[in-house]
């Protein structure tokens, strides 16, 4: 049942990023909203829970995007496993660090995309427009990451309680 909640959250974030926000805010460059989700699963959820969610999100984004296939898969897997390994020796699991980690994730994704764009163009792609985009994305990440953290935290804990209560009730009745 948890995975249904995770899937719905993924879908909502994708729709928010691809349909609602471009329609409402027009040309404002919002960062990839699935990055906070991937990082949240990396830091606060088990591998068994996180990996399917990350794979599903990545495949969904790769299929929707016009970017080279597999670029989101690469980004999300690296982010997921990278932060998962990092918090074992650096204490990253504090809510106040979450925005900074999301910013690091956004910068990492932009570097991957920049490398892919440069590779396909056959030369280093550089423009002030891309710098501006990255700057806006970082600002948006700093502003929205705490809200997304709270949303994920409350929602997934509520889902945990709901499904654990149901399973214990079913256990008693069985």
């Amino acid at each position, binding site marked *: 049942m948890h995975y249904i909640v995770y899937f719905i959250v993924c879908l909502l974030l*994708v*729709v928010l*990023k*691809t*349909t609602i926000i*471009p329609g409402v805010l*027009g*040309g404002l*460059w919002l960062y*990839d909203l699935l990055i906070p989700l991937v990082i949240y699963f990396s830091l606060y959820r088990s591998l068994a829970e996180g990996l399917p969610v990350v794979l599903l999100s990545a495949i969904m*984004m790769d*299929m*929707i*995007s*016009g*970017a*080279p*296939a597999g670029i989101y898969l690469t980004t999300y897997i690296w982010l997921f496993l990278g932060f998962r390994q990092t918090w074992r020796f650096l204490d990253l699991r504090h809510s106040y660090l979450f925005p900074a980690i999301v910013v690091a994730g956004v910068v990492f994704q932009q570097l991957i*995309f*920049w490398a*892919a*764009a440069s590779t*396909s*163009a056959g030369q280093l*792609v550089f*423009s002030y*427009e*891309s710098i501006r*985009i990255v700057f806006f*994305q970082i600002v948006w990440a700093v502003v929205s990451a705490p809200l997304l953290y709270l949303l994920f935290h409350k929602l997934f804990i509520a889902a945990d309680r709901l499904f654990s209560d149901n399973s214990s009730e079913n256990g008693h009745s069985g």
Partner: protein
Amino acid sequence: MFSKKTMVIAGLIFLVAANGIVFSFNYIRKSSVYPAAVETVLFFTAPVMEGVTHTTRFAENTWHRYFSLATAAKENERLGRELAEARHQLHLCRESRLLDKRLEGFLEFRETTDHKTVLASVVGREPSAWYQSVIINRGRIDGIETGMPVMVPEGVVGQVTGVSRSHAKVLLIIDRNNAVDAMVQRTRTRGMVKGLSSNVCHFEFALHKADIKTGDTIITSGLDGVYPKGLPVGRVSRIIRRSSGIFQDIEITPFADFHRLEEVLVILDPPDIDTNLLDP
């Protein structure tokens, strides 16, 4: 006790006496005593009457206003609802008019082209800022296949790179992974339109000696097997002729407004599609 005659006489006397009294009062009214009496009476009674009248009127007005206010509040609420409804209808009318205007352009284009086309709405946009694609609400069941060209009446939009049963992904010509075989309409100089993932494209491989001017229209050449020949692509907005190199550095501004894409036409019978040529 009294005879009838006596009663009649007494009555007449009473009437005469009463008449005399009335006449005497009228006489008094003309005398100097009467105004003083009136003044005295009015002095004491009129303020009370005035006060009572004001109070009554105040009470009446308050009561009336209360009801008027209550009625006005209800009226206001009703008018507010009607205004909101009217605004909504106006908004729908405006949207409908704009849609009509856009569709008129599409219809005109369909009438002038021999190609079979299908109209689609843009339902989603590229999630990354580095690439340029859109999702449209037509798919395999509408006859759409990978590689089909997509356009608006103003010009070329891109090509289909992925299809599901009812939706398709369109890679825009401004994406750096897209290219269109094109030529200058005026001089027929051939080149390749390549996206820059911004609002402009490059017109590449135009020789240094080729006669190209700012404002020239770029059209599809039809030689790439994707886009039919003669579709408008964009206008030359900047030319940089470097002293070295054999090609000119030409920037073109596409005719299609990619920030305002709402409906597009997919050409269902393009010249010849070789899907092996498409990027995976």
